[in-house]
């Protein structure tokens, strides 16, 4: 049953090709960034060594990198999933805040539950809140044709500042000096896998989720229909697929996934909700999804790369005094090069077709 050997081979070749292309692009980006580091008056070799050490130097570093990977997998998945339905979800950040808020409420105010149940409830709440926030944009899109890019951007502000309000007042930790909530109950916390680091079993949940999403997209009728809506709305309509309902559904699930990013941050590492707590995981998710070519498995690796760059950057700064912002430049360069590689691939294909 399932896929024939030919299909596996062609898919393997495809994956190998795009992986080698991505790696080449990353290499070239690091090369170009090296020039920038030189221009800034630092030694790029020392800087990169520090970066590598910071990201992978010891089990503690690896643990931190993986902990950082976790929310990025979720937000990357969120953007990639919506994109498979031809929707651009720029609102993962807001959905993440919605998820975090719901999880922290469940984690603090629901008490007396056994650990696994409490965790599951917190996760469910985070997913539901994110799904609601994403679904709202989906509803506007499917019912009134409102552009989801605009609506999700706007909903980001609403969510972020609503959380800010909540942690300053209604659910602030007494007596209320700091803009933060109390810690969630120990029964709601995800078990830590690597001692001394922030790494919880959240990473396993994230990877599991990615595999599940891949299955959903390529092995279920729902996934096939959703991808059909994404690739050809006309064909979907004439095949009897309720396009509007699928758009709504895709935005809801996408929002739910982004919500889980908030959840794992709260019950996996931070334990309390602060205002403006996310360093832009939702926006990084867009780049992660892009780098992973909207493939759930690709998203895992892309998220890992982004996390490594960010974690390594701290070490780089400490060792060499190089500003962290340079890492943002490196990230930007990587994305540009990947984009360029994509264009190169497309161009070669066209030349082949043209026979020149």
């Amino acid at each position, binding site marked *: *049953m*399932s*896929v*024939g050997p*030919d*299909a596996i081979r*062609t898919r393997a070749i495809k994956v190998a090709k795009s992986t080698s292309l991505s790696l080449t692009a990353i290499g070239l980006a690091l090369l170009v960034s090296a020039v920038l580091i030189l221009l800034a008056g630092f030694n790029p070799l020392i800087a990169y060594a520090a970066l590598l050490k910071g990201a992978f130097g010891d089990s503690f570093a690896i643990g931190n990198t993986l902990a950082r990977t976790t929310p990025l997998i979720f937000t990357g998945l969120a953007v990639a999933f919506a994109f498979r339905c031809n929707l651009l979800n720029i609102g993962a950040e807001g959905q993440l805040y919605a998820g975090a808020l719901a999880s922290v409420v469940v984690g603090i105010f629901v008490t007396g539950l056994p650990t696994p149940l409490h965790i599951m409830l917190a996760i469910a709440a985070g997913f539901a809140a994110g799904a609601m926030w994403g679904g709202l944009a989906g509803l506007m899109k499917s019912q009134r044709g409102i552009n989801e890019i605009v609506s999700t951007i706007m909903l980001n502000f609403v969510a972020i500042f609503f959380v800010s309000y909540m942690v300053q007042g209604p659910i602030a930790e007494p007596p209320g000096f700091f803009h933060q909530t109390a810690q969630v109950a120990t029964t709601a916390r995800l078990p830590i896998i690597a001692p001394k680091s922030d790494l919880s079993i959240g990473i396993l949940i994230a990877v599991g989720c990615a595999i599940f999403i891949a299955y959903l997209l390529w*092995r*279920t*009728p*729902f996934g*096939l*229909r959703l*991808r*059909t809506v994404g*690739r*050809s709305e*006309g*064909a979907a*309509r*004439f*095949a*009897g*697929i*309720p396009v509007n309902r699928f758009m709504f559904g895709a935005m809801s699930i996408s929002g739910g996934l982004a919500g889980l990013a908030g959840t794992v941050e709260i019950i996996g590492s931070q334990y309390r909700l602060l205002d403006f707590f996310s360093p832009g995981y939702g926006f990084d998710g867009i780049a992660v999804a892009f780098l992973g070519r909207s493939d759930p498995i690709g998203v895992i690796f892309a998220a890992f790369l982004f996390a490594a760059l960010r974690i390594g950057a701290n070490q780089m700064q400490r060792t060499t005094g190089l500003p962290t912002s340079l890492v943002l430049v490196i990230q930007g360069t990587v994305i540009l090069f990947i984009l360029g590689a994509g264009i190169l691939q497309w161009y070669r294909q066209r030349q*082949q*077709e*043209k*026979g*020149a």
Partner: protein
Amino acid sequence: MSLLRMEEITKRFPGVVANDQVDLVLEEGEIHALLGENGSGKSTLMNMLYGIYRPDAGRILLRDKEVQFSSPTDAISAGIGMVHQHFMLVPTMTVTENVILGLKEQKGRWNPLLDTRGAEKRINALAEQYGLDIEPNARVWQLPVGAQQRVEILKSLYRNAEILVLDEPTAVLAPKEVEHLIEVLRNLARSGKSIIFISHKLNEVIQLADRVSVLRNGVLSGQVDVADATASQLAEMMVGRQVETPKKKPRKSGETILTTANLVVKDDRSLIAVDDLTFDLAKGEIFGVAGVDGNGQKELTEAIAGVRSIESGNLEISGLSKSRGKRFREIGHVTEDRHQTGVVLPFSLWENYALKVCGTPPYGNWLNMNTGVMQEQTRAAIDQFSIKATGPDVAMSTLSGGNQQKVVLARELALDPKLLLAAQPTRGLDVGAAEYVHERLLSARDSGMAIMLISTELEEVLALSDRIMVMYEGKSMGLVDASQASREMLGLMMAGVSLENIENGMSQ
């Protein structure tokens, strides 16, 4: 001295030889047809003449001088003009603006303002000289297709083209517009222009051309004077065997499946597109809907398919399920616009095949698709419909139009629908593939399927249908038995003369 000689032109693409030592000679004032099935290499040959491709071998001589074009700009300045099948016009601009687009028509050497008035004058002069009926100030989107085509011709003439290449110029035209085009082309030839037109329609070639070159699989299979050739000879040169018109068995009567009464449907702009239609359709029947494109056939089909709402009147299909998904599986639909609504190009063949059936046994359930079964079914369809594809995993986009259509047909027939809507099922297909689609439709009819055939091709409608309805501006011009219909009669109805008026006219 010939105006143009293409000698032993060869062009290879990865895996195929598109042109294999093709010769073509064009005289001054000649109308030359380039005949061949889709994929026989006609367009490739012309693209080399127009500088889009470069030949791998062979040479092109213009008035006995060898030329090499590295871009269309070179070809244009050498006096070659091309009218593509899909027009290269900017809809929101005027005719004049479109004609001078890309040229430096400024008022004076030192005056950079556009000399629209001067251009207009020249356009008018050209239009008059060649009998092109055109209004220079009209905006292109306001013009009917025939007029847009004349703008394209004018564009070439304005650039002093001596040789005009037209790629399937009649594919988009109504019968009346075709007549007009033929007149224009004759005028051009008479005043010394030379014309090459690409076509796969035999009757047009015979009607219009002086000489014809026939391509088959990239090889020139003959160049003859049209006066010396018969249609069946040309057809044989084109497909390499005798073409047969499908034979129809007498119709078995069946129960009525579809009934409409005073049906009114609106189009996307909320204008009435289907106006007061009443007809019915029974099992074992092919019901032909003829008419020029854009007379409400699309809206009618979509309303029956359930993707367009009904304004008023009745539309009933007996025995349909209540569930939306099931209903779509019970009505087969070969859609008019294959790329927009029929297939998903980046998907594999089996995914396309599975669009409607996925999730229903034996293709799996709601949680899991049985990809193995669907791939097997697709493989079987590839064999059964002789689809040119290496397997069910290849992307739909890699198939030619004819083979894509076969996949669609296979998919829709596999559902064993109660009703099959076939809209322009052979549009853009070559003779062989079209013949096959026709056979399939007829055998489905003989096995008791109810089929509605929507087509702008009179021959097709006449050959396949049991009854024919002609639509004009959303209304029915009449419903006739195919055995009693003639080309002339249907042609009149397509032009808006009702059956009643025709019969009255005949009795007088």
